């Protein structure tokens, strides 16, 4: 696949669509969660308003360069993930910068944002941030382990590291999806998915009760707006990867919307039900349940 300049506006368009989709979808998810609690929840456009509000705040206090760069890194992680992952299979416009080794890059980007965040939050000097970061890194690492194993498993299965090719291999019938061809890997990957989406029971990093409020404690106004933007892009980008790898990708925006929604909903479905684990409990959980499944998945292939 060769690079063409037209891909840049195309990719930006993809980002734009995903951003808006994410804004509205996360709001709807919140409304669903609220419904379980017995209330109506936020308006669907609330995320936009919050974003504007945060951009419009007049005070911006910085605690140093890294503090400033933290959200930027974080957003870069989210954007990078999208940019290097084909969003719609078979569409030239939304192919983004997918290339032969993009799976590895994607895995890297998943982690990149978190690391950037860690630096920024560390710079903010608030002990809650530091604690949140250490929790976050530990937990994400543990949660990514099953995912890494699952990815290893399917790259063995499909003999490629290119996401587009993996998606291509799943086309045709629903039973070509990795979900059915390699269910163990999917289960292992879902451990990682649920574990990194920052929802109960694995959201102790951001928990307001256990320690307020984790890494973003000191972030506000525009910094926070950047992070908010990332908060809607990054999970979707991640969901796209899962969709591509395990659920047959999407051939159009309709399928994309449905699949992302459904996948995202899995975390909500689990999230509203459970209290949250402590960090070491969730790590133990991943090591005890996620890791063996991942290893089994590799062995199965």
């Amino acid at each position, binding site marked *: 696949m060769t690079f063409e300049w037209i891909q840049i506006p195309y990719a930006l368009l993809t980002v734009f669509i995903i951003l808006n989709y994410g804004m509205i979808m996360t709001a709807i998810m919140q409304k669903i969660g609220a*419904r*379980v609690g*017995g209330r109506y929840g936020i308006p669907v456009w609330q995320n936009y308003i919050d974003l504007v509000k945060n951009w419009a705040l007049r005070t911006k206090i910085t605690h140093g360069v890294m503090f400033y760069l933290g959200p930027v890194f974080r957003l870069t992680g989210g954007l990078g993930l999208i940019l290097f992952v084909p969003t719609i299979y078979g569409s030239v416009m939304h192919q983004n910068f997918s290339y032969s080794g993009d799976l590895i890059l994607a895995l890297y980007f998943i982690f990149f944002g978190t690391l950037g965040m860690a630096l920024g939050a560390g710079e903010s000097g608030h002990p809650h941030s530091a604690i949140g970061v250490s929790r976050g890194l530990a937990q994400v690492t543990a949660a990514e382990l099953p995912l890494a194993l699952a990815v290893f498993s399917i790259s063995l299965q499909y003999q490629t590291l290119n996401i587009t090719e993996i998606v291509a291999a799943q086309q045709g019938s629903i039973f070509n999806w990795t979900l059915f061809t390699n269910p163990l890997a999917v289960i292992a990957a879902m451990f990682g998915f649920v574990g990194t989406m920052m929802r109960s029971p694995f959201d102790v990093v951001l928990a307001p009760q256990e320690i307020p409020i984790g890494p973003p404690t000191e972030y506000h106004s525009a910094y926070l707006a950047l992070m908010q933007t990332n908060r809607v892009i990054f999970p979707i980008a991640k969901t796209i990867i899962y969709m591509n790898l395990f659920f047959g990708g999407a051939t159009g925006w309709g399928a994309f919307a449905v699949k992302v929604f459904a996948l995202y909903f899995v975390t909500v479905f689990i999230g509203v*039900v459970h209290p949250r684990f402590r960090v070491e409990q969730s790590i133990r959980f991943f090591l005890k349940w996620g890791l063996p499944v991942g290893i089994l998945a590799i062995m199965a292939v």
Partner: protein
Amino acid sequence: MSLKDLISPFYVWQRAFEKPYTQKRPIEDRPGAPRYRGFHMNSEDCIGCGTCESICQNRAIDMVPVEGLEQRPGDSGLRPRFDYGRCCWCALCVDICTTRSLHLSNHYAWVTEDPDAFHFTAGTDPMPWNENSLGYRRDDDYHLLVHDRIEMEMLGPDESVRGFDEVMKGYTEEQAVLEADRCVECGICVATCPAHMSVPDYIRSVRKRDYETGLRLLYETNPFSSTCGRICTHRCETVCVMGYQGDPIAIRFLKRAIVDRVPAERYREILGDDVSDNGRTVGVIGAGPGGMSAAYYLRRLGYGVTVYEAQARAGGMLRYGVPSYRLPDDQLDKDIDYIRSLGVEVRFNTLVGRDVTFQSLLDTHDAVFLAVGLNQPSALRINGEEHPRVLSGLKVLDDVANGLDPGIGRKVAVIGGGNVAMDAARVSRRMGAEVTVLYRRRIEDMPADPDEIHESQAEGCTLVAQAIPVEIKPAASEAQVTIVWGEAEMVADDKGGRPRPVLQEDRMHEETYDCVIAAIGQGGQIDFIPSDYREQIEFKWNKFVPGDYQQTGLAKLFVGGDIANSRADAISAIEDGHHAARGIHRFLGGSADA
């Protein structure tokens, strides 16, 4: 970790399909409950007693004057203003409100930018919730005050009618404390009391069983405390805030409770009346309550006081007009003797105009206080009233007081509705007569003390209201007299005054009695004042119209008592005396602050 623990939590999703608990319109959907304690409302019944202010532990209530209030008796003209920067909506003010005028609405929202805006006078300031009909009201069965008066032991009507023993036994100490405890100490009564006695303060001293302080407080404004503790017309009780929901405090009897517990010989020591002569003298005409009161306060200021009394004993109307079952002589003597013990000289049997001239008084004294009272019975102004069996009420009482037989017979009609009429009726009952009282207006219009009316009825007097005497005719026997009277209808007065009785010509009655006692009022006798002086003095309806400090146009002459006021009761006379004493002192160059 069992499978059940894994699956059972997902049960929460069941609630996702239920209707949310949310209220669509959060502000309008839930008005305060009918009993909600919201913002304050105050009705027109409020009299500004300030009890709400005194119970408020947050000092959230100020009593402030309100413009444009109609001046009513027993209304302080103040209204509670609430500071919602202080209020905690405990509604104790509502619970304690003596008139039940204060309520809470169920309105509860008040949001402003200005922190100084949270003041308002309930009931008069236009607030959005003034028309609210719901909200907290005190439950009928819930009281923070004691509404029932402590009953005093008294002679039953059967017993009392048999003699001249004092009817009211007076409170025991425990009863007095309990009764005093009911007082909310608002002070509304002080303005209504003609003498402006510091009622709440002496009631508190009863509650604290501190009778010495009580006596000092009484004597500040009233040297006839023992007397007033029995027979005062207690206007204070008519405005007492406790009367709005129950019985007013027995202010009169609490006064008596103090004096009954202080022996006369300790008065001087307690009151600390240390008299030193200042060299000037004042003449007082009449040893009634007005005269003696003036004498007391003048004497305290150091004036030499000489009282000229026509009768053989002091006390005036108290002595000769009030029967001893209401005011035993020894109690009156207790008061008068104390005043005399300070050095007030009383010249008995000295009638001004006969034994001594008015002019000589003016010459010998630096000032003269005149309180001769009303001792001339008013005429009935009907035909035949000169019949010998038509007696005057005053005469009857006078005779009884002096131990003479008034000769009333067995069947008596009393005409009038004032205290004299009631006294005459009850005295007649005690002398064994069957008594009918005829009164022009309704019973509730009677000027007599309600207690008196009630007691006279209890003692067996028949009260006939709306009965206008028309004529008096000689009866068959000379020892009897016939009275013709007609029933009256009350007709509303066009000019807004009180309803007038109008004689119904077709409903006339005729009855024969052993005597008719006329007690419809008295007039004064001031012929002794030379006419050139009289021209300088303002009169109205044969009574003095005194200026400030009871002074008349004749600068040296101060007047007071029944002859100078329209209220015609002892306590007013006492106040006139006190007021005049201050006026005289001021006139003679002292300060009025005495």
